[in-house]
């Protein structure tokens, strides 16, 4: 069974500083990987996804993530954060052999931007 571990439950960062949100997954097969963002009292918005090809994936709002198969990681990065980036971030994995089947999510990382 697949699982996702988000190593940090909370990450405080000063405005305009860089940030990295860590995600590790456990799977014996190939995977699709996703990062979603959830703003307060809202649903989930897709930031970026890795399906195949280049291991460096660029998403919306200046975020990017790098797929590292040997370390089974998919860490999310942004070189300079803004107050508006304050939100909960979820890493998720799905099994490509089953297509649009279930997403397995991590427990989330709450990113707080300090002015």
């Amino acid at each position, binding site marked *: 069974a697949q699982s*996702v571990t988000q190593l940090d439950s909370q990450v405080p960062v000063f405005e305009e500083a860089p940030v990295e949100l860590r995600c590790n997954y456990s799977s014996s097969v190939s995977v*699709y990987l*996703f990062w*979603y963002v959830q703003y307060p009292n*809202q*649903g*989930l*918005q*897709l930031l970026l*996804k890795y*399906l195949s090809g280049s291991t460096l994936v660029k998403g919306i709002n200046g975020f990017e993530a790098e797929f590292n198969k040997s370390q089974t990681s998919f860490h999310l990065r942004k070189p300079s954060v803004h107050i508006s980036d304050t939100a909960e971030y*979820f890493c*998720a994995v*799905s099994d*490509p052999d*089953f*297509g*649009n*089947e*279930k*997403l*397995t*999510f*991590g*427990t*989330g990382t709450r990113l707080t931007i300090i002015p």
Partner: protein
Amino acid sequence: DAGVTQSPTHLIKTRGQQVTLRCSPKSGHDTVSWYQQALGQGPQFIFQYYEEEERQRGNFPDRFSGHQFPNYSSELNVNALLLGDSALYLCASSEARGRGGQETQYFGPGTRLLVL
């Protein structure tokens, strides 16, 4: 282009009651998935509907059931509500893989259910 919509936005029920939540998928999408997000947790997969049939199910009891209509909209029904069913219920839609769809699920804003 309307995204995924859900109704109602909020709901309060008492233990033992039954509830129905509704979801309309994004235009062009024919697959609907439901997730439960408890406070402070990541979403947990409940089940997925395609061609009006349940295609895959997560680890949820039979009290949780669903339906998909010919227009691809969907309902989630929960019977005999428990306090622990209090959560944000998220609907996600996607395009079926066999039709060349992308492997991306788009989420609605959710229905927040409180069971007293």
